[in-house]
């Protein structure tokens, strides 16, 4: 008895923003260097009347178009920080919109870049405790709605997307052990301060300056780049070793490390610290950028296209919270 990832689909919004488009808005900035260092050429953003749930429905419907039987799905896990409303739960609306059974379990969970790996671990737990047989794990995010139009850096890095993954009961255990980490002391390093229950949305919010030409208000995303970088560089290489140890596997036996695609510079920095060769460490965010909890499933889908035998893959997410989690999965074929 075990759990296995058997399908992944993803969806980007139609509206593409290239570095050429951004250069028109920010003529004083050299986007060619950004492209080289950060590795992003194009990101996709929703229109004003389009939401993360809309993207999620499209990703889920791709699964159904490819032959997944929706009537067999018995649990829905929905990872987002861009919920449709404060309440109700977006997962409930998704159940209705895509026509899932009324007998399913469904809930939202609020995590960012560590969300997908949390979801995999939870899906495995539901299956192995005999509470579900076929879990639909959805990630959907529209950070573009929270980013100030004059915040060049965050507009360059983040993109919107949604993904849908099927994890189902299987004879072989293909979802290994997962570990977690949490440090709420860093909760204000990546934050949207207003609009929740502590601080109301403020229509007359003061514009603040990052000091690098980027602006934001407390209604928008604020990211303390240096602190997020230090957290990642300090914590994640060590954590990767712990995940390998927990799964009783040496890094030489890992076919691919698929980390949250934060930015290419940061990923390469960690790759060198972990001492993994570039061909075993996935870096591809040229098309789509950093899509928060969506990057790992998008990467798995794309990476799996060339799989010819069973592969062992370390998946690892880290970011807002601060929160991190990772584990070992095995992919048997192209998703």
């Amino acid at each position, binding site marked *: 008895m075990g759990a296995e990832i058997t399908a992944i689909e993803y969806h980007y919004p139609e509206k593409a923003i290239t570095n050429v488009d951004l250069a028109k808005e920010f003529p004083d*900035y*050299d986007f060619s*260097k*950004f492209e080289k*260092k*950060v590795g992003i050429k194009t990101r996709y953003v929703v229109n004003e009347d389009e939401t993360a749930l809309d993207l999620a429905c499209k990703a889920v419907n791709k699964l159904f178009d490819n032959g997944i039987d929706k009537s067999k799905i018995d649990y829905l896990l929905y990872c987002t920080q861009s919920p449709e409303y404060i309440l109700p739960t977006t997962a409930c609306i998704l159940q209705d919109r895509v026509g899932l059974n009324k007998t399913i379990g469904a809930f939202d969970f609020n995590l960012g870049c560590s969300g997908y790996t949390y979801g995999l671990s939870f899906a495995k737990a539901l299956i192995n405790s005999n509470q579900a047989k076929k879990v639909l794990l959805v990630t959907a995010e529209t950070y573009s709605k929270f980013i100030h139009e004059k915040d060049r*850096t965050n507009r360059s890095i983040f993109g919107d997307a949604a993904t849908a993954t099927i994890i189902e009961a299987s004879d072989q255990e293909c979802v290994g052990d997962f570990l977690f980490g949490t440090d709420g002391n860093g909760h204000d390093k990546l934050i949207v301060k207003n609009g929740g229950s502590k601080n109301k949305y403020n229509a007359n919010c003061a514009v603040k300056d*990052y*000091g*690098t*030409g*980027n602006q934001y208000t407390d209604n928008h995303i604020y990211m*303390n*780049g*240096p*602190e997020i*970088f*230090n957290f990642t*560089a*300090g914590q994640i290489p060590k954590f990767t070793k712990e995940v390998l140890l927990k799964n009783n596997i040496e890094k030489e036996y890992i076919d691919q490390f698929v980390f949250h695609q934060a930015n290419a*510079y*940061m990923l390469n*920095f960690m790759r*060198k610290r972990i001492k993994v060769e570039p061909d075993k460490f996935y870096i591809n965010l040229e098309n789509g950028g950093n899509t928060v909890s969506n990057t790992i499933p998008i990467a798995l889908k794309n990476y799996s296209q060339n799989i010819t035998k069973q592969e062992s893959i370390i998946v690892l997410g880290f970011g807002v919270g601060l929160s991190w989690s990772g584990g070992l999965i095995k992919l048997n074929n192209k998703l």
Partner: protein
Amino acid sequence: MKKQDFINELAEELEVESQVTAETVLKDLDEWDSMGAMILIGYVSDNFDVTLNADDIEALTTFQSLVDKIGVEKFS
């Protein structure tokens, strides 16, 4: 590491096109931005095992101020 070698190497990492000295003000460089801050933190961490936080970056002025922050004793 020699101070000027450090300054030259870091300038190369940051892809600074103009000539830099210890007196060059980092934030006056056309190339200085949030990516530059990240690259600087990564470079200093790798080469000196010193972690610069957001306040350290905020307080930086010249390349010399960075050398002082890392510790002059680490340079020849």
